[in-house]
């Protein structure tokens, strides 16, 4: 079939990657899709997706989440998109492209956006089973599948992508190696000092790094599958899987075949308008293009600029003349929990420039700024703490308003200043991926009435690609809102204009011990004397509970007014399930339990017909208890020596442990004993959000302490304390707070840390988000709890001592109090009748909720259980 040249001129785009898609958007914005036929040949089995965020597939993003192609856009603009049909030949004479399917398209303008392919060094057996590259969603699917039955992986190449790939392999549960030919990791972005700091951090994360060695041969077994690799230093590395990440090369074969000019080292040669030098009807953009400055850009931001340039040129709009003559190579590593960033002239190649360096190799910190003779910030490298990346990058090319030293020194080291993004000029580029300037972001707030970061993202496209600018974006939006007089109400809820932290201070200072008193004296005008709301009641209930002994309140959460403040779970001391039944979780400190304990739990579960499951927190959950059964179940548990596990409370959940020194051949401290001690010390402590902890017996970290609010890892000399870790929805690796602590030092520091968190955090703010939010971050917290910079450590410790001294098991108290027990009924007027909606059906030899029972007379089931469990 031949599509004949009709009246409408045709643009054919070859390659539907990130840059190709941006080109289509740029055409549409200029009205070109209305006047032109636009044909897109897409080689991959799916339309354009976010390759930059590729690795996030391993952290739960689906291929659909990564898609950048809105089918409605394609349809609306009448774009003909042929998925899975690559261009095979171009006949420039006849201006004709033939696709693999045999379809032929005649063009007036041809745009090549074919991207790159991963370079695989020509080593023997490079194509063996178990060898992969890291470029497409299909590559990732294949790696994931292969890794399922394997234990070790190696990445060839220690650059930006290699590190991302190695982190992903580790995430897949493989022991991971990185082999880098250069003497340091990320040789293009960081210098020697940065490389050393980076190496330390990467190794601490459990990845093995081999620098200064090349890969000579892939070793295979008799079936042809990878078993290892031979390195240039004569050693051999055993591995089941190899990922090549040794750089990319422009995909210029199609261009070569049709006689277009390509560079010596590849790349289709184009001029300032992205037009090929050999043919005015052909353009090349993105990673396949060799720009007029003699470079091939391997980043998405320059590609986007080229897409805009080409679209503007093709549209031949007199008023808009864009050109692409070069771009910035700033980058930030997105994965691995390592902060590495480089921007501008990172290696100091300009004449007469000087370096300002701050380095602390013990904590893996390295920061370098390159400053020109006149004080202009030219570029820099940040390793270990890239907090300032967004701001510094935006200042590149100008003289920052404060001294350069103060920008790299850590907070607390005297000079440091926090240079806010508000100090930036309007033309500073905030989002380099999408070329969005500060002025545009301000305009989104002032002119387009955006009031939230998601709105601004949608309006300006800023922050929608690599995400490294989102933090600065948020600060700018808040600043702009405040400046334009929009009051950013920081109050806890409609009843209180104070933050949680302010309410805590009021309660503590004035010894206020009832919610009503607090509401009537400090509530907003309309709220005083009222009933409060579901947000402030539990929040204030939690403050009163954590300070109970100190402010003279009863520490028992079901006492008096406190009973009316608790969320439903705390009110029944159990977790509500979807059908109105409850779960029961006894405390099993450190995850250690005797055979007798297991038998008791087993017997109780059997006698009450409960569903049992081992939880992710190293204990046992029993589900399906009716409200009236809770006291009976707990009477038996308490008799057998168990106590509440507070699975329902915003309070300490579990302190997980590994088996540690006692049994494990690697263990260097008794991690189980420490976990039990900590769990017993902090049990029942009410806090802004739940608290989790873990203790590992050595650096192998089997207890996953670095994903906890406070995590402890044994060292030969004592304990390392990590804080601010989080699993859950937004995982965060914990930060090292202090090293080699004795038992006493450790406990003292945790006491202070927890009480400082409880005092200053917002409602439902985990330690991870708290640490990210509070001014000064980790350094500030360290100053306060280690150096006692605020002089409050003694108070923090004494508050904790009060808590520990007054702890009592809530369930033991409850089963001995007939008035409280009377609340545990389904019906006040029929205490012996169970709720008929709570029913169960069998599944895998246990029970599960009978859901049809819930939907009798209800709305269709798919409407049910949507929305957020939290407000």
């Amino acid at each position, binding site marked *: 079939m031949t599509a004949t040249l009709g009246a409408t001129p045709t643009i054919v785009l070859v390659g539907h990657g990130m840059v190709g898609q941006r080109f289509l958007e740029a055409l549409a914005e200029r009205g070109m899709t209305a006047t032109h036929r636009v044909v897109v040949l897409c080689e991959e089995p799916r339309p354009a997706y976010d390759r930059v965020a590729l690795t996030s597939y391993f952290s739960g993003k689906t291929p659909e989440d990564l898609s950048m192609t809105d089918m409605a856009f394609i349809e609306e603009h009448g774009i003909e998109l042929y998925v899975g049909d690559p261009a095979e030949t171009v006949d420039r004479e006849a201006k004709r492209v033939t696709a693999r399917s045999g379809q032929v398209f005649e063009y007036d303008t041809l745009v090549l956006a074919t991207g790159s392919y991963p370079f695989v060094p020509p080593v023997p057996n490079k194509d063996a089973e178990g060898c992969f590259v890291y470029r497409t969603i299909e590559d990732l699917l294949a790696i994931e599948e292969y890794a399922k039955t394997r234990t070790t992986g190696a990445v060839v190449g220690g650059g930006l992508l290699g590190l991302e790939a190695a982190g992903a392999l580790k995430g897949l549960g493989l022991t991971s190696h990185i082999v880098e030919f250069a003497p340091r990791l990320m040789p293009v972005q960081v210098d020697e000092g940065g490389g050393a700091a980076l190496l330390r951090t990467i190794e601490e994360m459990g990845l093995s790094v081999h620098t200064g060695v090349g890969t000579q041969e892939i070793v295979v077994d008799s079936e042809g599958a990878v078993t290892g690799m031979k390195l240039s230093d004569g050693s051999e590395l055993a591995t089941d899987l190899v990922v090549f990440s040794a750089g990319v090369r422009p995909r210029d074969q199609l261009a070569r075949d049709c006689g277009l000019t390509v560079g010596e080292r590849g790349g289709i040669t184009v001029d300032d308008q992205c037009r090929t030098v050999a043919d005015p009807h052909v353009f090349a953009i993105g990673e396949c293009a060799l720009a007029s400055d003699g470079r091939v850009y391997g980043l998405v931001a320059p590609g986007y600029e080229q897409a805009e340039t080409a679209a503007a040129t093709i549209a031949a709009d007199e008023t808009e003349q864009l050109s692409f003559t070069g771009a910035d190579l700033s980058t930030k590593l997105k994965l691995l929990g390592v902060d590495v960033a480089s921007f501008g002239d990172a290696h100091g190649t300009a004449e007469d420039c000087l370096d300002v360096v701050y380095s602390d190799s013990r904590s893996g910190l390295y920061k370098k700024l390159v400053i020109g003779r006149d004080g202009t910030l030219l570029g820099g490298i940040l390793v270990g703490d890239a907090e300032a990346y967004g701001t510094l990058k935006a200042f590149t090319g100008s003289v920052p308003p404060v001294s350069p030293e103060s920008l790299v020194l850590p907070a607390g080291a005297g000079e440091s200043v926090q240079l806010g993004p508000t100090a930036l000029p309007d033309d500073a580029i905030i989002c380099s991926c999408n070329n969005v300037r500060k002025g545009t972001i301000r305009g989104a707030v002032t002119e387009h009435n955006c009031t939230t970061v998601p709105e601004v993202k949608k309006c300006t496209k800023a922050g929608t690609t690599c995400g490294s600018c989102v933090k600065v974006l948020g600060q700018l939006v808040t600043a702009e809102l405040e400046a334009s007089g929009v009051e950013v109400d920081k109050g806890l809820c409609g009843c209180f204009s104070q933050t949680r932290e302010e309410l805590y201070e009021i309660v503590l200072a004035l010894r206020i011990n009832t919610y009503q008193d607090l509401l009537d004296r400090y509530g907003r005008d309309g709220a005083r004397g009222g009933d409060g709301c579901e947000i402030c009641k539990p929040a204030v209930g939690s403050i009163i509970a954590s300070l109970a002994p100190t402010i003279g309140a009863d520490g028992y959460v079901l006492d008096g007014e406190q009973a009316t403040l608790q*969320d439903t779970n705390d009110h029944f001391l159990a977790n509500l399930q979807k059908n109105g039944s409850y779960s029961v979780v006894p405390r099993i400190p450190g995850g250690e339990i005797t055979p007798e304990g297991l038998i008791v739990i087993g017997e109780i579960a059997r006698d009450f017909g409960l569903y049992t499951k081992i939880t992710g927190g190293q204990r046992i959950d029993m589900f399906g208890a009716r409200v009236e059964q809770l006291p009976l179940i707990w009477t038996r548990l308490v008799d057998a020596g168990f106590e509440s596990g507070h699975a329902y409370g915003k309070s300490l959940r579990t302190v997980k442990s590994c088996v540690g020194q006692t049994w494990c051949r690697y263990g260097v401290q008794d991690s189980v004993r420490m976990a039990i001690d900590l769990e017993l010390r902090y049990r029942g402590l009410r806090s802004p959000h739940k608290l989790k902890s873990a203790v590992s017996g050595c650096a192998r970290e089997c207890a996953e302490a670095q994903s906890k609010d406070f995590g402890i890892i044994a060292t030969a000399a004592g304990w390392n304390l990590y804080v601010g870790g989080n699993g859950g929805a937004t995982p965060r690796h914990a930060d090292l707070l202090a090293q080699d602590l004795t038992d006493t030092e450790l406990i003292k520091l945790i006491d202070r840390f927890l009480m400082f968190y409880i005092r200053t955090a917002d409602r439902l703010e985990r330690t991870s988000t708290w640490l990210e939010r509070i001014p000064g971050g980790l350094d500030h917290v360290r100053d306060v709890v280690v150096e006692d910079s605020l002089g409050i450590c003694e108070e923090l410790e004494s508050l904790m001592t009060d808590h520990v001294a007054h702890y009592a098991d809530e369930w033991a108290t409850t089963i001995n109090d007939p008035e409280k027990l009377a609340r545990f009924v389904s019906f*006040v007027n029929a205490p012996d009748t169970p709720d008929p*909606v709570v029913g169960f059906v069998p599944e895998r030899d246990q029970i599960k909720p009978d859901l049809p029972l*819930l939907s009798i007379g*209800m709305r269709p089931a798919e409407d049910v259980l949507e929305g*957020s469990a939290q407000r």
Partner: protein
Amino acid sequence: MTLAPETTDLKVQLQLADGWFTVCDLSRLLPGRGVAALLPDGSQVALFRDRAGKLYAVDNRDPFGGAAVLSRGLIGSQQGRPFVASPLLKQRFDLESGQCLDDETVSIATYEVRAS
């Protein structure tokens, strides 16, 4: 909890089709919390008492999740209007009208209630 003497003899009553139905002693209702009651026809009602002593009664079923748990939610007031927040997914319901405050297409039944 100590009971205020003047309330001990009062009963909570619901208006049903065939007259006032006595549920329990008023003292069983903790101001700020709810209880559930079973009606003769097998349906369930959530009863609440606010800080000022006012009583409210609504259907106990959460229309979003289906479980009979509204009596276990927290109550509050918004611009003077009393509401209960479902303990399941936190949608709020006006205690006087039964209207869901987070989804205007949903509302629940309310009952006339008194202490006598």
